[in-house]
């Protein structure tokens, strides 16, 4: 069997970088897709330093044409895509009634439409190959709500519902589609939010049974399971990785 190839969005930093590193450590070639090329190149360097393969591609998930170019470039380089990890995400935390429609649109475009765009471009390649694993990063905000994240939670709720239907449509092609729902995680996004909301980290650590935020490696472990052969019979599911903060 030739080496598997994974396309990871938002892989230029934080969680996406960690997921890329973990997949690369399992001898998977990684396409580090990001809008931030400097970050993407850094991820590629880290992976190559450990003797594994990766390339960086410019990918704005909100733009279907741009995603198509990124996917075409990936296939030119690696010949196929076996694994898609829809990780790119963004949020601005503020009360819904204070938020502006332009921000709603940005949140929905990145978090929900972005996953639709990559799925639209990459699933046909997987169907053609008769193999595919898709892991969509959702959020516990989608499962239980999160104050200040109304639109984000709606977009991520859309991701979970989209995952279920795509899992059904793709099952006949032997493509598994699942969701990982992180709880509060120690990522650049959370750091940005934490800076604006004093005491948030401490309050969350008190509420989480494991008394700490998630590290990116915690989330990457769940992604690694879903893309493994061991998870062949698992599809349409959502797994919270939350230190027990939510239990659904």
């Amino acid at each position, binding site marked *: 069997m030739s080496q598997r190839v994974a396309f990871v969005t938002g892989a230029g930093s934080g969680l996406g970088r960690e997921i890329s590193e973990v997949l690369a450590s*399992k001898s998977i070639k990684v396409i580090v897709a990001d809008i931030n090329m400097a970050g993407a190149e850094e991820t590629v360097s880290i992976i190559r330093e450990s003797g594994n393969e990766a390339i960086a591609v410019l990918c704005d998930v909100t733009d279907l044409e741009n995603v198509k170019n990124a996917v075409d470039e990936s296939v030119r380089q690696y010949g196929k895509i076996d694994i898609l990890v829809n990780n790119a995400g963004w949020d601005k935390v503020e009360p819904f009634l204070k938020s502006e429609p332009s921000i709603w649109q940005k949140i929905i475009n990145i978090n929900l439409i972005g996953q639709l765009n990559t799925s639209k471009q990459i699933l046909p390649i997987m169907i053609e190959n008769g193999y595919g694993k898709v892991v969509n990063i959702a959020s516990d905000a989608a*499962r239980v709500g999160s104050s200040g994240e109304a639109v984000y939670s709606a977009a991520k709720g859309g991701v*979970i519902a989209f995952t*279920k239907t795509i*899992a*059904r449509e793709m*099952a*006949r092609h*032997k493509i598994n589609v699942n969701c990982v729902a992180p709880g509060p995680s120690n990522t650049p996004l959370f750091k940005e939010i934490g800076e604006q909301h004093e005491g948030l980290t401490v309050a969350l650590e008190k509420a*989480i*049974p*494991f*008394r700490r935020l*998630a*590290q990116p490696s*915690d*989330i990457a*472990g*769940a992604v*690694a*399971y879903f893309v*493994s*052969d*061991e*998870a*062949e*019979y*698992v*599809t*349409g*599911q*959502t*797994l*919270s*990785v*939350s*230190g*027990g903060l*939510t*239990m*659904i």
Partner: protein
Amino acid sequence: MNLGLEGRTVLVTGAAKGIGRAIATSIAEEGGNIALHYQTSEKEALETANVIEKLGVKVALVKGDLASIDDVQTMKKTIEKQLGTVHSIVNNAGYAQYKSFFKYEPGEWTREVDVCFYGVLHLAHTFMPDMMNSNEGKLINIIGDSARTGDRNLIISGAARSGATSFLKSLSQEVGRYNIQCNTVSLGLIDQGQEFDAAMLEKILKQYPLKRLGNAGDVQGIILFLLSAWSDWITGQVISVNGGQSMIG
């Protein structure tokens, strides 16, 4: 991938045959020592123990009825003598009758609740204090998707297992501070050599997007994941391994 199970002691209940045997064997292949529980299937338990020993790990056979707290406490003593402290538990044992509610005689449901619900309490109450002392541990309970979605012919075992799921959520909040993870694996229909006629099988598979029944390997994967350090931040969760038959939450 190193799962970190080498030298760990894992109690697998209902491990004499079927899924339990497959789980115990896969843990042993990763270097884990096995406390192999059975209740009545002694011959099969011995066979499984032989297979496991050949993998170069230690195995202790423990007989007992999980419905009895005395039996579970005796199991602990037996395991400790042979293997030391139990680090993790996979509770695969269960008991279910397949019939509708009104076909039960009053009281005929007790055994299902005793095994599927109280059995989990007995295991946790007996083994978890040691895990708390050593500040680590994993408890995985296996249920059927009937407990999540309902099934008119698995009405009692489904209710008992749903109770066990709720118990594990609360327990995981209690023991999270001791770095102990408690999770539930919910299975769809697993092929264990049942003889379905072709028409029945076709009818069943219509409900399964992945168009096949589950197999032992499907269960082994999720169990190894939940026993490994890869899942250290996952607790109180329920994950279905069911070919997509149900998609909840």
